[in-house]
């Protein structure tokens, strides 16, 4: 090509990239670092599920009809989320956050070593928490349903399992909130806001995974 044979063309190219980046970020609008990660369905399900847990755990009277219905809604929400994890967009899929204890351990080690990478979907520890929360909700839902059936009505272990798993769920939720706080502080990405707006605002020069 006639154009590229100019002696200064290589230098210009090398210099123009950081400058271009500066131009983009200097535009003050949503720059390339503002990345859409959580689709509206994921967000709706997340906050609805949080609401059902809050309502059934703290507001609604136990053994009431409403408690049962809210429980079924929670089960339904998890079911919808599982389907969405099969056919949904990239960041919502199982493939984006496989349940891998090995990766979680490695991630934890990296964290302690001061790694500040940003994960677009759930980070490996967060992924484990996600599965843990879903399984807990499903178990609570199933044991709760069993209590309404004639076969299992009044049987102690079912009721106990319902209570124990709910206790575990509360503990998990606390851990989940703490994890979100720690990771927001570590990575500089406000994770709560990203679950509301759907976007993660990645700080300049941070590695993304």
């Amino acid at each position: 090509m006639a154009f590229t044979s100019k002696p200064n063309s290589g230098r210009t190219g090398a210099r123009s990239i950081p400058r271009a980046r500066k131009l983009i970020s200097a535009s003050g609008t949503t720059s390339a670092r503002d990345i859409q990660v959580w689709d509206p369905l994921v967000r709706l399900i997340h906050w609805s599920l949080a609401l059902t847990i809050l309502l059934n755990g703290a507001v609604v009277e136990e053994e009431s009809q409403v408690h049962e219905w809210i429980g079924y809604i929670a089960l339904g929400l998890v079911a919808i989320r599982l389907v969405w994890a099969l056919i949904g967009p990239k960041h919502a899929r199982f493939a984006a956050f496989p349940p891998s204890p090995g990766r979680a351990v490695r991630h934890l080690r990296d964290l302690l070593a001061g790694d500040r990478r940003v994960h677009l979907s759930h980070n490996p520890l967060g992924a484990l928490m996600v599965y843990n929360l879903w399984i807990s909700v499903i178990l609570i839902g199933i044991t709760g349903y069993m209590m309404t059936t004639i076969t299992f009505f009044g049987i102690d272990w079912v009721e106990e399992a319902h209570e124990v798993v709910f206790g575990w769920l509360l503990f998990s939720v606390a851990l989940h909130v703490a994890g979100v706080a720690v990771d927001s502080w570590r990575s500089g990405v406000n994770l709560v806001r990203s679950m509301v707006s759907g976007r993660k605002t990645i700080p300049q020069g941070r590695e993304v995974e």
Partner: protein
Amino acid sequence: MSQSLRPTRTRERRATVLAGLILLQALCALFFIGDVIEDFRIDGQFDNPHLILESVAAATLIAGVIFLMVELRSLLLRMSEMQLGLDIARGHVAEIIDAFFAEWGLTDAERDVAIMMLKGVDNDTIARIRKTASGTVRAQATRIYSKSATDGRAQFISFFMEELMSGDIAPEETAEEKSDQGSAALPEKKTQAPKQSSTKELT
């Protein structure tokens, strides 16, 4: 500015509405399925018309939910593609502007002033931002005009507008077409496919 650069906003609203519908309809579907199972458990047979009708309704609802989910996914995909295109375009614009600046041999200070001029910042504000006298900025602006062979701010800005609007096809083809015309100001940079920083981050 941020509003005009976000044509995806109405689509975002549509996606949210779609997600809400999916959620409600899926819960309705699950309610029907639960009802069918419950009835079946009590009746133990599947031949009464009520149960059959209810099953059909449940299956239809499920199919509807799956369809809406696929629809939502393709809407989200279109949105992210649009955003990607926009980001690439922004990157290209930056590259092209920078290539022209290099071609004209603007100094670093002149580049900063020129960029701010393109963004519509007036001389006094440029002077404040760069912490220089406004006379300095005026002098730099004059040098920028003479180096770019334009006769003032309006022409300087419209030079880039003209450059960006002249091609209605792919950037590479535009560059070739331009070079055939022997456009004097076309820098060599433009024929290379510009390296993109934003595309990588978005995938």
